[in-house]
């Protein structure tokens, strides 16, 4: 299964139909980014035939643009709306991944999303899990969609 393609399809679908913002996928990242500044990460766990975590990392500017477009209003600061919106984006992208995996006969169930935010934080997953990340370029910054997983079969 092509996990980068799964990320691109699921993310593009959410951005085209729900967020209504252009998010151009780039080449999959070759080096891990673990440290984030002035950013929000929406994370969501999943389990089943594949178990792992999805993380959507957005600089604050990108998070505000996504929230504004999703809710149809001006967003000028990082507030609960933004944190909820980024959690919900993680939820929707994970829903798309679930469909993509099901087409390849791999069933997963989703956890609930959590939004992590701060001026400087790191996010780290199990060293031995597989890792795929795709950057998406928006008008005002780059969002990184990461998938870390282990197969059970």
């Amino acid at each position, binding site marked *: 299964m092509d996990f980068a393609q799964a990320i691109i399809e699921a993310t593009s679908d959410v951005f085209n139909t729900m967020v209504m913002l252009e998010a151009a996928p780039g080449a999959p990242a070759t080096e891990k980014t673990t440290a984030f500044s002035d950013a929000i990460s929406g994370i969501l766990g999943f389990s089943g035939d594949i178990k792992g975590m999805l993380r959507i990392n957005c600089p604050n500017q990108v998070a505000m643009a996504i929230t504004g477009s999703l809710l149809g209003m001006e967003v000028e600061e990082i507030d609960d709306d933004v944190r909820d919106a980024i*959690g919900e984006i993680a939820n929707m992208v994970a829903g798309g991944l679930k469909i993509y995996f099901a087409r390849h006969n791999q069933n997963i169930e989703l*956890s609930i999303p959590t939004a992590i935010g*701060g001026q400087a*934080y790191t996010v780290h997953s199990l060293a031995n899990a597989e890792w795929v990340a795709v950057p998406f370029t928006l008008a005002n910054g780059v969002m990184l969609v990461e998938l870390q997983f282990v197969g059970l079969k």
Partner: protein
Amino acid sequence: MSWDTHIADATVEIFSTMLMMEVNPLAPLTERIKTHQKSVTGIVGMAGLYKGMLAIHAPATAAMAITGNFLGLEVDDVNDDVKDAMGELANMLAGSIKAKLSDNSKDIQLSIPSAVCGGSYSLDYQPQQGCSMVPFESTAGRFLVELQLEQQT
């Protein structure tokens, strides 16, 4: 719905059997703490009959002491061992709580854990979920165990 007792029982059990540490649950918090300073958080998703997230939040000093006990070595900074240990601890706590929520081990499945750390970061969940946050006292210092859970209907 509150899961305080499950959290207290699971945490006391895991710390005494896996880390040989005695920990004492304090009164559950009535208002969740969402921002953590100079801390390490281990977090894991739960999916299936219940979906949610289990997190353990410890100040850096407590996280290092816990890791030292866990691995049986001296730890003097927040390195990858500490992040792995906190993630693994979240995994074990969620495994224990999952067994208390359902007799059928297939009803609830865990994702892989992640660890978050930084000088100041926040964790937000969407408001509709049930939440419990229980503080614990130990020789390593205080730490918090948090469960966000919703039962599927």
